[in-house]
């Protein structure tokens, strides 16, 4: 059984979750209370010490991030709930934090709660939250990557290239390190859109900061600093050269 609270400034959103939660049988959620402002939320958490907080992003004139900042060393897991704050979604994905889109879908709620049950390591939670708070409003330096052993934070600047392998993605990192992540290349492409990454090919996303040289050809290919060569699709050639030219 997991002790949970809901913090949301809209009563109907609280109601919707409260109506859905009894339908979830695994894990069983026990509601300890709800709050409609950040300040009420802080005192609710300090009073009940919940294991899980459903946290709205925009809470009246404050944000869920303000609440997290006010509680250092959070000992609870967070599932954000949001209707459309896109900047926030990107930040959540970066830290591999869970979120639910409103109106909440019961299947998605079930999936998110199953993950709550599985990972309970407090140090990872506080790292996720501290990276999230660092990253809000700026370009985060690190990206949270779910692996078999939990979430690992990798500096974006150390990623040389990402290579698609079905529904998995191989990350090739500086210092000859490699990781296999169960995310699609498209997800990485979206996540890293604001960085100097470029999809040169169906199956390769390259950090242009690591490009050593470009070799001409129909599409040509790139030589990277780790001495790997990556083919460039002829359809991407022009845009790639534009990008390289502007760097």
């Amino acid at each position, binding site marked *: 059984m997991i002790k949970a609270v809901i913090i949301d400034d809209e009563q109907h959103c609280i109601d919707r979750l409260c109506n859905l939660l009894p339908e979830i049988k695994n894990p069983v959620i026990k509601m300890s209370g709800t709050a409609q402002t950040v300040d009420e939320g802080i005192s609710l958490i300090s009073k009940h010490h919940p294991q899980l907080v459903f946290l709205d992003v925009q809470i009246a004139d404050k944000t869920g991030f303000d609440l997290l900042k006010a509680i250092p060393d959070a000992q609870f897991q967070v599932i954000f709930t949001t209707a459309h704050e896109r900047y926030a979604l990107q930040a959540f994905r970066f830290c591999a934090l869970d979120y639910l889109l*409103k109106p*909440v*879908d019961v299947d998605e709620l079930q999936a998110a709660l199953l993950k709550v049950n599985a990972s309970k390591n407090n140090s990872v939670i506080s790292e996720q939250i501290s990276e999230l708070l660092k990253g809000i409003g700026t370009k985060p330096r690190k990206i949270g990557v779910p692996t078999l052993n939990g979430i690992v934070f990798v500096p974006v600047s150390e990623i040389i290239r990402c290579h698609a392998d079905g529904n998995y993605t191989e990350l090739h990192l500086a210092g000859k390190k490699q990781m296999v992540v169960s995310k699609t290349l498209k997800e990485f492409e979206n996540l890293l859109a604001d960085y100097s990454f470029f999809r040169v090919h*169906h199956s390769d996303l390259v950090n242009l900061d690591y490009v050593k040289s470009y070799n001409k050809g129909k599409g040509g290919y790139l030589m990277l600093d780790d001495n790997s060569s990556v083919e460039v699709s002829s359809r991407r050639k022009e845009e790639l050269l*534009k990008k*390289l030219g502007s760097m």
Partner: protein
Amino acid sequence: MRILILILLGIVTSIANGEHNVLDSLLKQAQQYRVEDTNRASVLNQLSIELSNSDFEKGMAYADSSISLCKRINSDIKLATAYYAKARNLSSDGQDSLAIANYQIAYDLNKKIGKELACGTMLQNMGISFYNLSYYKKATEMHTKALAIFKKLKNEKGTSAALNSLGIVAMELSDYSHAIEYYFESLDLAKRNNDSVVIANALMNIGIVYKNLSDLNKAITYMNNALRIYQQQSNDLYIAKAFNNIANVYGEMKQPGKSLEYYQKALEINKQSDYEYGIASNYINMGIELRQLNRYTEAYNALDKAGSIFRKIDDKNNYGISLKTKAALLLAAPDSVFPSLGISVSQRNSVSKNLLHEAQNIFSETGDYASLSDVSDELCNMFEKSGDYKNALELYKQRVAYRDCVLIDENKIEVEKLEMKYDYATREQELKVANIQKQAELKSEQLKRKYTLAGGIALMLISGGFFVSYKRRKDALHKRKEAELNTERIESELKALRLQMNPHFMFNSLNSIINFIDQHKTQTASDYSVKFAKLMRMVLENSENPEVPLADELQSTELYLSLEAIRLKPKLTYAIDIESSLDAENIMIPSMLLQPFVENSIIHGITPLSDGGTISISIRQQEQWLYITIDDNGAGISPDKPALTERKSMAIKISNERIALFNERHQTHASIEYVQLNPGTRVVIKIPLTLQF
């Protein structure tokens, strides 16, 4: 487009003054000295080279006769020069590919007989021809090789020329940092050697770089410094060029008054030295500035003068430009101006039309598509204003075709530039690394000394060709912007159409939700709303992009169908089938393409049936086309229902407009076709297969 004409070097004697004397004496020698030996070959070669600046047809003939003479007397040295002379004439004639072939023969011969300096000269000239052909990469390669040779031989003129050319290529590539580096290196050399001509030329070129960087104040400062040196030397030709360039910068600064003042100064000098090309260039530029000041009569007269000179010196393209500019001016001028031009207002259109037609003929001859597109545009506007839509449409089509020629050309050049620019950076890095290693081995300072000590004289940097082509370049940029604007217009219209899809679709769904609530089906209302929210989110996201992966479009279509299936339960079943060889993630299609057709099929095909029906969507590839077929086994046509083609919703009309714009944007023939099935209806959407990667 030729911005700068560089004149070379070594073998060529100076022809700055007394050109006619040199020619005359050479001609005399050629007539008198008829012995078939190397002396005669020398004379023929020199004559050919001299003529390359004025009469390349004759020049070519002399080169050819020298070539056959040299072959008869077996003189490789003179033969090399003869090929060089031929190449120079070919290049003057604009036949740069052939010129390169001849330079290459000359280079091979010189290499064979060990004339290193001449080899450098050939490479340098080949570079210029490659530059004229817009092969910037090759041009840089040649100039770099030439530079190495000149430096090795400590040939100052050559070193300067090569540095200068490298600067010009870099400038063309908008690689201003390298351009400035080259010019500063040349400035440095010149300062050491106290060579004020080169100092001034380098300063002027640095000024031009700053102008291109839009750092106009700095540009003026450098150009003024150059001007001061030219004035000290009383070098009239260069003073005029400096005035012209400064005028150009003032024009860019939107100070037409000041700009005019400087063009006027340039004009006076050019008139004194009878430099016709310069005079005509000044006039045409002045016409442009005068028009900015609404001084139409003076502008018209200036353009008129420019035109008659260009015609006299047989500069066809610039003559065409003067005609075109004149016509544009007439079309824009207020009625009150006409009496002073000696043209009655009622003749405005007919006079302009004649000017434009004449310009059109000239540009067709010279193959200047950018200008042709301009002329078609003006004519099109004219016809449109006078209500002659048939002709207007014809010209609009022409314009689009010409514009495409320009765009394709520019795109090609752009890619070449980018490739080049990137290779540049990479090679430089490699060089740096190599250099560091070498320096460590060889005690760096000595090496550095040697490198910078080679001296040189920069060549004709800023030639007459610069001025008009500068304005023309502006024109080309303008044109390109216009084409981009047109693309933007299409994109924004497409976007507006996409956005219109959203509210339409939203209200339909809200209506269904209300129905569920009215019928007390709360669970269905809840399920439906959650799905609807998902679909809405997807639609909003997709409609921001003109094109989306087929996979995304199918996902939203499926979500839409599942919503409709809930609403119509149990009347609607559906199937989506995509050919297994197709990669839906990689195929791009216009976003929100399918939904209106699927909706139409549901409304008109399925809902009238009492037992319900099936929607089948299939995606197939055939050659370079993607066929999206939407079948329903529904009502089809019957006497009491409107015909297929009339059963069009608002959304379908919008989709048709989108397809038309899509065709305009991509110059393709996407189509939508309706087929009567028995029972049911088939819609076939045919679009070009476009891959993302």
